[in-house]
């Protein structure tokens, strides 16, 4: 089954999201902070008449914060709410060659939690990332 992948760059790496999970790619207009929310929440933004909860992809990986980096965001509906996932850059949508396979080695702290496996597309190997896990954030690891 050919799966469509959205290729983006996060924490300096090129990663793939299942395109079926992604509603849109947008450039955010304005970001209102949400004080005392979970640390990986960058704030709130609006898309048309909906409130987007903006998730800082870097903070979700516990790899710092993406303050001041390009505001490309992937819009992902999850659990009845709509989220905007901040990434460094959105590159392309491509077709996967084969289903994902489990990685053979540990990927590193943040990545293990969000990984859906490795996936090959157009001759390159990407890490397939579960956007819902990114949204759940570091706190979800314990559960």
């Amino acid at each position: 089954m050919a799966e469509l992948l959205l290729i983006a760059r996060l924490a300096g790496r090129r990663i793939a999201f299942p395109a079926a999970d992604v509603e849109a790619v947008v450039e955010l207009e304005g970001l209102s902070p949400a004080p005392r929310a979970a640390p990986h929440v960058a704030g709130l933004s609006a898309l048309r008449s909906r409130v987007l909860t903006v998730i800082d992809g870097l903070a979700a990986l516990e790899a710092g914060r993406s303050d001041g980096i390009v505001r490309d965001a992937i819009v992902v509906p999850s659990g009845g709410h709509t989220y905007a996932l901040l990434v460094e850059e959105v590159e392309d949508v491509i077709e996967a060659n084969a289903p994902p396979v489990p990685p053979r080695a540990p990927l590193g702290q943040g990545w293990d939690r969000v990984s859906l496996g490795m996936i090959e597309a157009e001759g390159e190997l990407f890490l397939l990332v579960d956007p819902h896990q990114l949204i759940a954030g570091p706190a979800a690891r314990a559960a």
Partner: protein
Amino acid sequence: MDELINDFIAETRDMAQALSGAIVAWEAAPDDRARLDEIFRFVHTVKGNSGFFDLPRLQQLSHAAESALAEVRDGKRPADRALVNAVLAVIDRIGELVQALESGESVGSEDDEQLIAALSPEAAVPALQPEAPPAADTESKKAVRSIRLSVDLLDRMMSGVSDAVLARNELARRLRDLPRDVAIEAAFDRVSQCIAEIRDAITRTRMQRIDSLFAGLPRLVRDLSADLGKQVRLQADGGDVEMDREMIEMIRDPLTHIVRNAIDHGIEKPEKREEAGKPRIGSLKVSARQAGNQIIIEVADDGRGIDGEALVSKARALGLLTAEQADRLSLAQKQALVFSAGLSTAGEVTAISGRGVGMDVVRANIERIGGVVDIDSRLGHGVRLAIRVPLTLTIIPALTVSVNGQCFAIPRSAIDEILRVNGGAVRIDPVGEAEVATVRGRRVPLIGLPELLGVASGASRDEQRIILLKPAGGDVYALLVDAVHDHEELVVKPAAPAVMSAGLYAGTTLADDGRPILLLDPSGMAKCAGVHFEEGELDRHLAAGTEQAEAKARETTLLLFRTLDGGRRAVPVGLVERIEDVPVSAIGFSAGKLRVALGGRILPLAGCAAAPEAEKLRILRLTDGETEIAYGFAEVIDIRALVLDLQGAAVPGEVAGAFLVDGATVELLDPHWLFALHADAGAGQAVQPICALPEGDPWVDNMLRPLIESLGYRIAKAGDPADILIALENQEVPSDANVVRLRAAAEGEGSVYRYDRAALIGALAAARPAQGAAAGDRKHG
């Protein structure tokens, strides 16, 4: 009423339609319990509603069908073909009657009896064949006054209009950059106005004050209590809470059921209530409030409560529970059995509410809209049922405020007052690390929103504003913000869990310019800031717990009351031990003074010249720490913290002086004069029995001891002899002592639950050997 009856018609028609599948399935398999329950619920609901709307024919029919079905449910009779047919015929007749009700026609009532007779097990007559339901042509006979829309459609309209508003705002910004053109501006203004009107209309189609839900209750309560020979006082609060229309409709039936149950099964007859030491008139409180992102509707009665054990044995008898399962249930779980289909502790089945069946319908309906029903009951003391439903898509009037340029919204319902920091009305004092604001003599904790949110304040203290907030179920506190902007009507949606986890927010919303705004949760903020308030503060005010008010402003907290002759007087709350109703028979002239007998003691009675005519007298028990006197009065007006500006009395007397409250004169009692005149030294103590308490237990020291003392007992010093010994669960006691044993668990035997005040008082009185002796001593001595 018209609106309600239209709703009833539409709803019954919808339900009958939805049920037709179940009826067919039941006909095919009469043993199918789920179908049976579904049909049973339908006739039960019709019975309830028709009782409410006074439609006797519908009520008779549905009651008969319900009784027959109940027998099937209880396994007392099989669901044979004759019964199925008879029930179907009744359901069809209900459909016809409802249709007739709508179009204003009449349906012959001759064969109602026959239909009902067919339901009885002995029915010899062949059951009527269900007629084909009348075709749709009758529907066009009368213009329909309302239509029902799916909420999905309304949602789409709503979000469409929200988009239109944002697009208009965008257009407005663009237009401002262009050279002015009067014609375009006029056209734009018209579009703006249209959008605003549409938005308003759609908003209103969705929202309704919860009043409309409460409107039917007084009548319902009146009729029910009259039918049952009970006396019930209904108190409804929070009717101005707004709720999604859909939600209100979904809650209407469950609420009616709950109220019915409370009156029918909960509240006892006046004589029984008197025996149990409760006021003759039962109390039923219905309240609605918004708490965080939920609306909570609470129904509390002071009736007999739910007997968890009786429910368990009923459930065992019906085979719903095994013995092991029953043993593992907690008290709360036992009480929650009341929600199981077919369970009830009601001894008899009445036409009013029935067999506890309402409760499974209640829960099913509430859960369908994502809500929760909590039940809390103490046997003998009543039931408190709380329906919690989510606040999705509710419109909240809110105030927008900002901190360092960032906007937040505060629900207007929680806002008491907005003040300027540098205005004369407020004083702010640092107390340790915290701050306390004094607003016209009333001290309230101060929470800085910037500190709470962990952001820097963008304004100097003088420019800041103070908002007095009164969250539902809590006490007033002051919130410091940088600036107050505007009142807006906001459509609130729940925020993402990662945002809600902050505990500060009730939801998110979009302002008119499309910015996202977080709605602050007033009680959540208080909790986060560590300001704790006790729930039900108001109730406690009138009982014993004025501790809070006292602690805040001891010297100025006054109880305002109306005297027996109608005057307004006040007394410092600190002097008031408790407020009590005493029977007039307990009042008498003895030793030259009016006195009142209270729990084995005799207190001097002030405030009235002679025993009043009424059956009961309400008294304040005033204490100076040593002696007590009673002061008769008519009613409590308020409890207020005031800065006294007293105009002294010309001559010393009962009144120390007068002052102004809300522009009216109030006389302040002179407690010193009262005590000097009335309290003959030692009069109270002579008959105080002595109580020994367990030592070194904080609960005893902080909670029990004050209660025991307030009841007029003296506490024995360690080692002293005592009349009564109060012991905790596992404490060893001498065998010859008069022991009152307390337990921590609500249920149990041979001891008194430690929060059961009435039982404790009773047990103390019973264990009191000295009472008779002491009284006897006085007579002889």
